[in-house]
Structures are given as C-alpha cells and as structure tokens.
C-alpha cells in the first residue's frame, strides 16, 4: 500500500523526445501517445515534458544527421544522469533506410548509451507503449538497485490483435531457392546471404528491417512472409541478436553429384501448377543435368 503512495508523491514519470533527423513517422506516432486517449502515456503514469532537464526517459527518433548531432548531444547532456534512453524506430539503431548516407552519423550508440529499442518503421502506438513500459521497468529496477527483470516475452499473447499489423518478417528456408531477389529489393540492407560449407544461410536483422514487406512481395516462392508480430521491443544489449535466420542446405545433384541448391517444391508449383513425378526429378538436378534431361537425352 505505501508503495503506491510513494509513487504518486513523486508525480508522473517525464518523457522527453529528441528528433535526430527522422522522416517524422516516429514523431507523429509519438504525438499520438500524448493526444489520443486510447494510447495516452498517462495510462503508464507518464507525461511529456518540454524540458530536457526534467527528463526521466529520453525517447530518440531518427538516424542522427550530422547537422543535428551537436544539438542532439547538447539536449541529451542536459537530461539527468539517471535517465533511461529509448531508441524509437529502427533509425537510431541501424540507420534504417538511411544507413551509409554522407549526411548521417548514426548509429546513435556511437554517441550515447541506449537502454531499450523499439523496432518498427514507424512502430504502432501499442508498440511504443510497450517499449516505454520496458523503460519504466528498467528505471524502477535501477532505483531499487536491482537487476532489471529480464524482458518477459509477451509476443505470443499479443499476436491476436484486431488488425494484422505489418510486423516481423519470417523466413522459411525450405521454400527458398537462393535467388536473392529479397536482398536485391531491400532498401534497408536488412538481408544477408552467406555461403557456408553445408548450404547458404540467410540472416534478416529486425533492427535494420523497415517492415515494408517488399522482399516477400518479390519472393517467388513465399519463403519470406510478413507476420503480425509487432511486439519487438528489447534491451539495447540484445540489439544484434534480433534476427531471423535459416539455411538452405546443399544437396548433391542426382545427375552428376555436384553440390547444388535443390529447387523448392513451391517454385515447381508456381511454374507447373501440378508437377508430375517427371518434373519433380528436376528439382534435384544441377542446371547442366536439368538441360540434359529436358532436351531429350535418353531417360534412365
């Protein structure tokens, strides 16, 4: 009981926003969390402040432009030492689509310590509230001198939402044909392919991804798909392990034995509608042997 009294006595937790040169998507959504009752940060006992000196939690948006940097760092330095810092959207963490521009000086972690990341581009207000909630948890733990409780994994419980928001990408290696179209169309450089000994490995980094779904649109087999999983906030220390990964194993060509990426059944279905056993044989042949088979070399 007395804990509650203590909480109200110290007043609301104050949030301070810093825009480091964003597209304004994250900022407009943050504005919603101070204007729209359903998403108001008041429900978390928070309130926005216009003064950096009062900041308990600093919310940072944008990829950090060179032009904005000095002012950003000045404001950040004005905030009290025990503030909790939240990176809103993927921009501050990885630069998002703006990474590697001559005018951008991110990621923000090069300049100041971040506690919580809220992936999204922009994150929906529900995700912003969840991330701010995580920051409150850290703040509470620090005050009490405890280890902050590890971020519980809420993802499963939040899947059943009214609307299918465009969330985390999911990758099905079994359907992948290694055409790399996804990497080609990804504006955010969020997809990597690496050739290993046993196969080809795809890694998709959720902190770089801008959740546009273009990779899945151009994927010929549906190996990449958009999930409704938008609850992606995490401790900044875990930034680099927020990935989706899969490996397409090499298999020996049934014709000559060379290591190849077998054709996924999804592709055969897309090309032939209903592949017959003859066509099915194609999938385990290397291109050379495939040609041999289709130009009418005596069947075995």
């Amino acid at each position, binding site marked *: 009981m007395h804990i509650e009294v203590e909480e109200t006595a110290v007043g609301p937790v104050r949030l301070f926003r810093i825009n480091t040169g964003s597209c304004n998507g994250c900022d407009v959504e943050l504005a919603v969390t101070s204007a729209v009752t359903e998403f108001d940060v008041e429900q978390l006992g928070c309130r926005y402040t216009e003064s950096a000196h009062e900041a308990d939690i600093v919310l940072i948006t944008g990829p950090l432009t060179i032009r904005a940097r000095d002012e950003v760092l000045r404001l950040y330095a004005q905030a009290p030492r025990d503030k909790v810092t939240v990176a809103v959207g993927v921009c501050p963490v990885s630069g998002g689509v703006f990474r590697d521009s001559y005018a951008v000086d991110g990621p923000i972690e090069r300049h100041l310590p971040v506690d919580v990341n809220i992936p999204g581009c922009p994150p929906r207000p529900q995700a912003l509230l969840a991330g701010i909630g995580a920051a409150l948890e850290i703040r509470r733990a620090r005050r009490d001198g405890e280890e902050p409780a590890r971020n519980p994994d809420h993802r499963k419980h939040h899947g059943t939402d009214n609307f299918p928001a465009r969330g985390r990408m999911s990758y099905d290696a079994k359907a992948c044909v290694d055409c790399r179209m996804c990497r080609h169309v990804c504006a955010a450089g969020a997809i990597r392919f690496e050739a290993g000994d046993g196969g080809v490995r795809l890694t998709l980094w959720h902190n770089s991804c801008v959740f546009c779904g273009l990779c899945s649109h151009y994927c010929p087999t549906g190996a990449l798909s958009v999930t409704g999983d938008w609850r992606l906030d995490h401790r900044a220390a875990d930034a680099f*392990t927020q990935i989706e990964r899969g490996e397409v194993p090499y298999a020996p060509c049934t014709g000559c034995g060379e290591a190849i990426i077998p054709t996924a059944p999804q592709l055969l279905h897309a090309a032939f509608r209903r592949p017959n056993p003859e066509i099915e044989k194609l999938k385990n042949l290397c291109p050379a042997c495939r040609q041999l088979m289709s130009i009418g070399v005596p069947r075995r």
Partner: protein
Amino acid sequence: MTDLTTNVAAALAMAAGEEINVLWRRDRKGVLTGWCRLPCGEALLPAARAVAELEGRLAMVTPYLPERAKEKGEREIAYHFDLDGATLTLTVVLPLEWARVPSLTPIFRNCDWQERELMELYDVQVVGHPDPRRLFLDHTLPHAPFERLVPYSTFTNAATGKALWDKVLAGEREDA
C-alpha cells in the same frame, strides 16, 4: 499541335534569335511535356525570360552528371517549368570543369533555394545569385558531394553497414 506548343516555339525562337527544337510528348492522359536542349549556356537567360513572359512557373532545377560525363567532359542542368499543367524542360549542357550558369533568381524568385542547393551539391558556379550561402549541407561536410558518385565507397561511410553486420553475425556465433 496546340496553341501552347506554337507559343513556346515562337517565344524561344524570338529569345534565341534562331529556331529552337522542342520535342513534345503527350502521355496517355493528354498531359504535355516538352523537352528542349538549348544550343549554349548563354541561351538560358533569354529563354527563361521568354518562359516568364508566357507566365511559366519555375517548378524544379535538376543538375546531374549524365552517362559518360567524364569521357565527354560534360554536365547538364535541366530547368523544368510549369505552363498551366504542361511541363517544359530546358536543358543546358555545360563543361564538367569550371561550369558556370547565370542565376535565374532575378527572374523567378523561387529559384533561390534551388540554386543554393545546386551550388552546394555540385561543382557549379551560379553567377549573380543574391545569397550564395550553403543551405542544407552541414558546414563540416565537404563541398559538392554529388560530384563524388564514382567511386563513392571512399566518400560515403559504407563502413557503418559493415560494422553493424559484423556484430550481427558475430552475435549469433556467441549465442550458438
């Protein structure tokens, strides 16, 4: 073809003192775009005045390094004007080195920022601009970043992406 195309042809011919070819394209919806390459840099100012006479509005200025700019030693600037829905593009060809164009700001007030931007992003001198300060570029950035498209790897910090990905790939190995 229409009054507009005849008027533009006449006005440009008057301004340049010679016939100037404008190629007009009409798209599926009937919208006209006219493309005109000016014979020389000096032709820009009179041509721009002629467009102003026709109540043209300056819509955009596009400086660029065309294909094989280095080989040909040339660069181009396209000035796009709105003529009540039709778009007329006047293109001037300039030398790659020591390029100079006259400022159109005295004729079109809204050319001011377009030219300031052109001056900071490219190595082009705009003669007679009333306020040639930098506009968007931070003062710590080198002049004319758009001249350095090739090779861009030394200039842009492609290193950021690499450093981040190294951590992503390493992070996973630690976990495994």
